[in-house]
């Protein structure tokens, strides 16, 4: 602020922790001047649940798979996926090829469901409830398919260390193809509604812009980064599961429009393109699925014993619908629970760009710009409380928690 520049009189509007614009609790403190946003402060930790503590102190790895599933209700596959890959990396287990293909199919089904959910919620944020109902009605088909394949709509419980728990048999293929045909047929209709509707364009074009340099500097991941022109995708750069056999290209908005602006409209484009890509991936997987077993070690009791004896550390990376999710796992011989478990969810890094995209905009842009990052606070808030050693129960202040968290990161890096 230079001499002579008037300091604007601002007042603070809190968005959260409970607010109709947010799916999950987070506190955004907006300093506004009239209707224009001058500054943004993001405060996390509103929905901390102690999940990593449970994984390290109470659960054996098989139980932790189901715990990892419940980190988030929407990204329900990517967390167990990354966790299972980390444990397999640490213990030296290789899943059979058929299991890898089934994992890929389930992950892509989840991506379709998550992007359709996001599309509906984004429409609701701009007040267009009709499209919200329409997008979620279209999503019902993939939910029915997921229920048919895995047994449940949300908590799919398909993963096991060393493979998957359920097979996708040849008899189930026609039902899967029926859903894929439905989505291929309706995709054009969805594209027209979201990308060519005048009021949606008025609300999303040039709103919440994140340029390419900003995306690279703030380390954004996932569709948020791809919409700004950064063509990074874990499935393309470090392929895991069956992605190495398929041809995956990171989806950026210039595939459709030829230019990259990095606003909310571009993020809608990227997510719609990814739905199309997911449909194609599932089709390719169904054609190429190799025969064989689905579990490296079918007897669960033997598996638990071998994991208790395993020693090593492993990192699992997966491409969640929101970006790159990393799980780090360390196993110690003779210990039934995990020795160390650290989850880095994609929303954690994406939230860093919130001040950049909100500053200078209007309050009316806050819900849609924030929602266009597809924030999943449930994935983000699992801070570790490390006072079990003393056994004392105390209320920790924010500064104390932060200090402990920094210390722990230093310990993990040694």
């Amino acid at each position, binding site marked *: 602020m230079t001499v002579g520049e008037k300091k604007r009189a601002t007042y603070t509007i809190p968005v959260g922790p409970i607010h109709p614009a947010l799916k999950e609790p987070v506190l955004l403190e907006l300093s506004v001047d009239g209707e224009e946003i001058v500054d943004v402060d993001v405060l996390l930790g509103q929905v901390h649940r102690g999940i990593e503590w449970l994984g390290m102190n109470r*659960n054996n790895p098989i139980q932790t798979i*189901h715990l990892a599933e419940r980190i988030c209700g929407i990204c329900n596959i990517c967390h167990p996926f990354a966790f299972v890959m980390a444990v397999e990396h640490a213990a030296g287990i290789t899943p059979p090829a058929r299991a890898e293909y089934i994992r890929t199919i389930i992950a892509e089904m989840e991506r379709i469901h998550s992007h359709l959910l996001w599309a509906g919620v984004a429409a609701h944020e701009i007040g267009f409830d009709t499209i919200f109902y329409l997008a979620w009605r279209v999503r019902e088909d993939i939910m029915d398919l997921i229920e048919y394949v895995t047994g449940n709509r949300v908590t799919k419980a398909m993963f096991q260390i060393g493979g998957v*728990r359920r097979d996708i048999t040849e008899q189930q293929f026609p039902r899967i193809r029926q859903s894929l045909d439905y989505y291929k047929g309706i995709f054009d209709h969805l594209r027209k509604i979201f990308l060519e509707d005048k009021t949606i364009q008025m609300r999303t074009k040039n709103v919440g812009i994140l340029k390419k340099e900003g995306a690279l500097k703030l380390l954004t991941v996932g569709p948020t980064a791809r919409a700004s022109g950064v063509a990074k995708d874990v499935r393309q750069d470090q392929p895991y599961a069956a992605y190495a056999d398929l041809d995956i290209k990171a989806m950026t908005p210039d595939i459709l429009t030829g230019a990259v602006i990095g606003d909310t409209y571009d993020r809608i484009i990227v997510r719609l393109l990814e739905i199309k890509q997911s449909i194609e991936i599932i089709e390719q997987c169904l054609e190429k699925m190799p025969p064989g077993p689905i579990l490296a070690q079918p007897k669960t009791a033997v598996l638990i014993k071998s994991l208790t004896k395993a020693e090593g550390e492993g990192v699992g990376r997966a491409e969640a619908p929101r970006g790159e999710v990393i799980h780090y796992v360390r196993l110690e011989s003779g210990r039934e629970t995990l020795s160390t478990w650290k989850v880095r969810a994609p929303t954690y890094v994406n939230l860093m760009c919130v001040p950049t995209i909100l500053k200078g905009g209007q309050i009316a842009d806050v819900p849609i710009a924030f929602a266009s990052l597809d924030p999943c606070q449930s994935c983000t808030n699992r801070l570790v409380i490390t006072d079990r050693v003393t056994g004392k129960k105390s209320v920790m202040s924010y500064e104390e928690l932060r200090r402990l968290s920094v210390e722990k990161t230093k310990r993990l890096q040694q």
Partner: protein
Amino acid sequence: MFEAAKTILRQLFLTPATNKFPAKYAPASTTQFLNKVTKGELKLIPPVPVPPQFRGKIALNKAACTGCRLCISVCPTRAIEFILEEKKVRIFVSRCCFCAQCVEVCPPKALSMTEEFLLSNYNKYADELVIVDSGEAPGSKQEKKADAGARRESSE
């Protein structure tokens, strides 16, 4: 310009997509509504049917349980309790997270998932929500063994 307008106006004349379970409008008094349903005066509109292999409420075949406690070691939510005197287990559905890990791990295949999902109750320890014995699951190995045994007995 308004791309959705045609679809929206057309939907005015189509049937709604809602599955109207249990009734079209919320009843003024839920207890009276449920009383009338049990008496048979009102019919519930059925829910969307579940696919096969749906993971619903768990069922336990007490006779087949050997008390090995493998299910307890894999349950993520500690929903299964070991009854020391009988050497059998007991499952609390209000804690169950429907992962079916115990079903997979059970050696004598005493556990199975039914298709029941309407499980709400005022009391989390009600009899329906504490599974002690559900008899033999239809089509299970035990039933087939029992049938084979009965046929052998009758032929002798």
